[in-house]
C-alpha cells in the first residue's frame, strides 16, 4: 500500500506510526477525497460569479454554456490563466520582498543583512546596464533595487520589464514582442488577468491564453529578480556536500525545520542558531542546534550553506511524525495547513512568520527585516523551550539519508567548466553537446502530487534520461526527490549515466577538484531558481547565435501540482522549451485550449506542453524531442 503512495523509504517507516497515533496525513486526505469531481478535473466548472456555479457537460448532452453564456473554451481558459496569475503573484511577492530588502540594505536600514556577494551584485548591475564605475556597493545596490522595483511600477505598456529584457535572447524578445506578450509591469499584468477574467469580459480563449502567457512571463521576470538579488544578498550557490531525507534530523539536537520558500528569514535563523548553540546544549541537547530544510526554503539554504534537506512537499508532515522536530518555522507557499494540528500531537512549535500567511493553531512571530535578528532569536528560543518538552519515547527518526552534492548555480557551473577552458568556459559544454557526448539537457522542476507515488516519476525519468546521455538540472521539489533518492551523488553518475555522459561529467568534476564526476543531477536551487537554468540556456543559445527553441533542451514537471507550476510551465513553453507534465492539467474540457497549449504553441512559440502520465513513456518522448532538435541544428 505504502509503495503506491510514496517511494520515499521514510514514508514506509512513518506512515504506520502516523496511523497508530491516529494522525491523518496528506495521503489519508487524498483517499478520503476520492472520487474527485470530474467537472473540476476537466476545468469546466465556473465559480467566478454568484449566478453560478455553472458547469459544462463535456459530453454534449447537458448545458453547453454557463448561465452568462460562457462556453467550455472560455471557462477553461479563464480558469487556467487565473492559476497562472496566482502563481506569478506568489513568485513576484517573494521577489518584491527580496528587492525591498536589497533597497533597505543599500540605505543602511537593515542591520541583519549585508551584500555577501559583491561580485554577483556587480554582475547583476552590468546585466541591467547600470553603471558601476566610481560607485560604492551601497550605491550600486540602490540602483539595482530601483531598476528592479521599476518592474512593479512601470506604466509604459510598450516598455518591457527590465529583467526580462536583460535576460532573454534577442530573437526570443522579438518573437514575444510580436505576440504582444512581453510584460511591462508584473503587478499590472497580474491585475489585468484578474480584470479580463471577470464575468462579462474577455471570452476569446486564444486571447485569454495569450494574456496568461504574458502573466507567465511576468512570473519569469519575478523569479529572475528573486533569484539574482537573493544571490547578491546571501551569496551565489557553490558546490557543497550535504545530505537529504528525514535521517538528517538528529535525536540529540534541537531540530529546527525551516519550511516554505523565502530565504530572508531562514538565512537569519541559520545565523542566529549558530550564536545560540550553547543555550541548546545547556537545555540538554548534546549536539546543539540542527537546522534542516523542507521544500524550497530548504533548497535555498541547502544550495547556499549545505544545510541538509529533511523533506520535500509530500513528506513535510512526516517530518513532524518523527517526534523530533522541535520547531517548524514556515514562511510562504506549499505549507500544508495540517502542520499545526500534527505539531500539536507532539511537542513541536509550528511558527508562522509572515503577516499574510498565518495558520490556525500555530504560534505567530511577526517577521520584519528591520527586526530580523530579534525575531530569529525568539524563534530559536521557542525551539529550545519546545525541545525541553520533547518525549524521547515518541521519537522515531527513520534511518534514511543520502549524500547530496548540491549548489550548482550559473556561476558554479560556469566555474567548473572554466577549469577546462578558462577563456571560453561554455565551449566544452557546447562541444560535448555538438559531438553527441551529451545528447541534450533536461530541467526537472515542479512539485510532488498525490496523483503520483511520491518521487517515483522523477526518479524513473531521470534514470532513463541519464542512460541516454542527457545532462540533467533540477530545482524545487524535483531536486528534493533526487537528493533524497541518492541521484545527486558521484556514485549515481557512475551507476546510471550513459558512457559518454559519464565521461563528460567525470572530466568536468575531476578538473573542478571534485576527485570524481559531477553528480548525476545538478541541484540549481529552489523552484524560484528555475531562472538559473534559463540563464545557462540563453548563454549557450547566444554563443551559437540561435534561439532557445532550437536547443536540445527540454523541461519536465512530472509531479506538478501548484499554481506556481502552471505559471512556470507556461513561461517555459513561451521561452521555446518543450515542457512535459506528468499530471493531468485541468484543461481537457476544452479541445481548443488543449490544442492551443499542446500543438499551436509549437508554431507560435517553439515550446509546447507534452502531457504524459507514464514516466517511462514520457522519458522516451523527451528523448525523441531532443533528437528532433538535434536534427534541426544539424548535429
Amino acid at each position, binding site marked *: 500500500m505504502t509503495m503506491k503512495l510514496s517511494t520515499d523509504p521514510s514514508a514506509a517507516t512513518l506512515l504506520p506510526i502516523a496511523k497508530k497515533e491516529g494522525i491523518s496525513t496528506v495521503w489519508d486526505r487524498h483517499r478520503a477525497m476520492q*472520487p474527485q*469531481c*470530474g*467537472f473540476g*478535473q*476537466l476545468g469546466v466548472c465556473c465559480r467566478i460569479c454568484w449566478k453560478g456555479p455553472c*458547469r459544462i*457537460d*463535456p*459530453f*454534449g*448532452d*447537458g448545458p453547453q454554456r454557463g448561465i452568462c453564456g460562457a462556453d467550455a473554451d472560455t471557462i477553461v481558459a479563464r480558469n487556467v490563466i487565473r492559476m497562472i496569475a496566482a502563481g506569478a503573484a506568489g513568485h513576484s511577492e517573494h521577489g518584491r520582498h527580496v528587492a525591498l530588502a536589497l533597497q533597505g540594505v543599500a540605505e543602511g536600514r537593515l542591520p541583519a543583512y549585508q551584500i555577501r556577494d559583491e561580485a554577483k551584485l556587480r554582475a547583476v548591475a552590468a546585466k541591467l546596464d547600470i553603471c558601476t564605475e566610481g560607485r560604492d556597493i551601497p550605491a550600486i545596490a540602490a540602483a539595482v533595487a530601483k531598476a528592479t522595483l521599476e518592474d512593479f511600477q512601470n506604466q509604459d505598456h510598450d516598455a518591457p520589464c527590465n529583467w526580462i529584457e536583460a535576460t532573454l535572447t534577442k530573437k526570443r524578445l522579438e518573437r514575444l514582442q510580436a505576440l504582444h506578450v512581453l510584460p511591462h509591469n508584473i503587478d499590472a499584468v497580474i491585475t489585468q488577468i484578474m480584470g479580463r477574467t471577470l464575468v462579462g469580459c474577455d471570452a476569446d480563449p486564444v486571447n485569454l491564453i495569450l494574456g496568461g502567457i504574458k502573466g507567465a512571463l511576468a512570473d519569469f521576470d519575478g523569479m529572475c529578480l528573486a533569484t539574482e538579488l537573493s544571490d547578491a544578498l546571501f551569496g551565489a550557490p557553490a558546490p557543497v556536500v550535504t545530505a537529504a531525507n528525514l535521517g538528517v534530523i538528529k535525536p540529540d539536537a534541537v531540530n529546527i525545520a525551516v519550511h516554505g520558500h523565502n530565504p530572508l528569514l531562514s538565512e537569519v535563523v541559520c545565523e542566529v542558531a549558530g550564536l545560540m548553540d550553547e543555550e541548546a546544549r545547556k537545555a540538554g541537547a548534546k549536539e546543539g542546534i540542527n537546522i534542516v530544510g523542507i521544500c524550497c526554503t530548504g533548497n535555498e539554504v541547502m544550495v547556499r550553506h549545505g544545510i541538509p534537506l529533511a523533506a520535500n512537499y509530500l513528506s513535510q508532515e512526516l517530518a513532524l511524525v518523527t517526534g523530533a522536530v522541535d520547531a517548524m518555522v514556515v514562511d510562504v507557499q506549499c505549507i500544508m495547513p495540517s502542520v499545526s494540528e500534527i505539531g500539536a500531537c507532539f511537542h513541536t512549535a509550528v511558527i508562522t512568520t509572515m503577516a499574510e500567511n498565518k495558520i490556525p493553531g500555530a504560534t505567530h512571530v511577526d517577521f520584519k527585516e528591520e527586526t530580523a535578528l530579534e525575531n530569529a532569536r525568539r524563534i530559536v528560543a521557542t525551539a529550545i523551550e519546545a525541545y525541553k518538552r520533547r518525549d524521547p519515547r515518541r521519537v522515531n527518526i527513520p534511518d534514511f539519508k543520502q549524500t547530496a552534492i548540491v549548489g550548482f548555480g550559473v556561476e558554479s557551473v560556469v566555474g567548473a567548466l572554466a577549469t577546462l577552458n578558462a577563456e571560453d568556459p561554455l565551449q566544452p559544454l557546447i562541444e560535448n553537446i555538438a559531438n553527441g557526448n551529451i545528447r541534450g539537457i533536461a530541467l526537472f522542476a515542479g512539485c510532488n502530487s498525490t496523483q503520483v507515488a511520491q518521487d517515483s516519476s522523477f526518479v524513473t525519468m531521470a534514470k532513463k534520461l541519464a542512460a541516454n546521455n542527457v545532462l540533467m538540472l533540477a530545482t524545487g521539489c524535483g531536486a528534493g526527490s533526487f537528493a533524497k533518492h541518492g541521484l545527486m551523488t558521484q556514485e549515481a553518475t557512475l551507476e546510471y549515466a550513459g558512457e559518454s555522459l559519464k565521461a563528460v561529467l567525470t572530466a568536468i568534476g575531476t578538473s573542478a577538484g571534485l576527485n570524481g564526476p559531477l553528480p548525476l543531477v545538478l541541484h540549481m536551487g529552489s523552484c524560484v531558481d528555475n531562472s538559473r537554468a534559463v540563464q545557462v540556456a540563453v548563454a549557450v543559445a547566444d554563443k551559437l547565435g540561435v534561439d532557445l527553441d532550437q536547443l536540445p533542451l527540454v523541461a519536465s514537471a512530472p509531479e506538478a501540482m501548484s499554481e506556481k507550476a502552471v505559471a512556470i510551465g507556461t513561461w517555459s513553453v513561451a521561452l521555446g522549451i518543450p515542457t512535459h507534465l506528468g499530471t*493531468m492539467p485541468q484543461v*481537457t*474540457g476544452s*479541445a481548443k485550449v*488543449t490544442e492551443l497549449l499542446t500543438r499551436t504553441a509549437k508554431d507560435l512559440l517553439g515550446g509546447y506542453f507534452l502531457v504524459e502520465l507514464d514516466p517511462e513513456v514520457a522519458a522516451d518522448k523527451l528523448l525523441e524531442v531532443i533528437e528532433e532538435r538535434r536534427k534541426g541544428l544539424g548535429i
Partner: protein
Amino acid sequence: MKRQRENAIVFAYPERCLGCHGCELACAVAHSGTGLHQAALSGLTLRPRNKVVAAGGVMMPVQCRQCEDAPCAAACPTGAMLQESGQVGVREKNCVGCKVCVMVCPFGAISVKHEGSEPESCRTNGGIARKCDLCAGTGREAPACVEGCPTKALSLVDLEEYRQTLIEARAAELAQSLQHLKSRKARI
C-alpha cells in the same frame, strides 16, 4: 419454479445530494469505454442514464427503478425490453427506437438519443433505448454513479438484504421489549 428475487435498484437519499451532477458524469464515462480526459478530448457525445433534478424542495438523481412489472417491457413492440439477469434489460439489436418505452415509463428514465460518434448514414439517427443497466458489463463492483458520488447519497440496494436488515433491527427491538415484559410479569 424459479426462485423469485426483486431487481436491485440505485437508490438516492435526497438529503445527502448536493446537486453536483458527478453521478451523471460518472455514468457517462462508465459507458464510454474510455477514461474521463480521453472521452472529453475525443469529442464523444455521451449521455448519462441518470438525471439530477430539483423538485419538491429536494435534489437527487433519477434513474430506472428496474420495475418488477415494467411498463416498458410490457409495451415494447419488438421485445427489446425484458426482465433479464436481475434488471430490466435492453436487447439493443431488437430496438428500433420507437419511443413507446419512453412514453410509458413513469420515471422518465429512458431516452432513445444516439450516443458516441455521429451516425454514418442518414437512414438512421442511431438512437436506441438507453437506461440504467446497473453498470452490468462494465466490470465494476458497484455502479459508477454510486462510486462517483462524493457525499454517498447513492447506494445499490439489494431488496432482500435491505428487508432483512430492517426485519432484524425491528426484531431486536421487539426482543428487548419482550424482555421488559417478561421481567414485569415476573414482578406481578
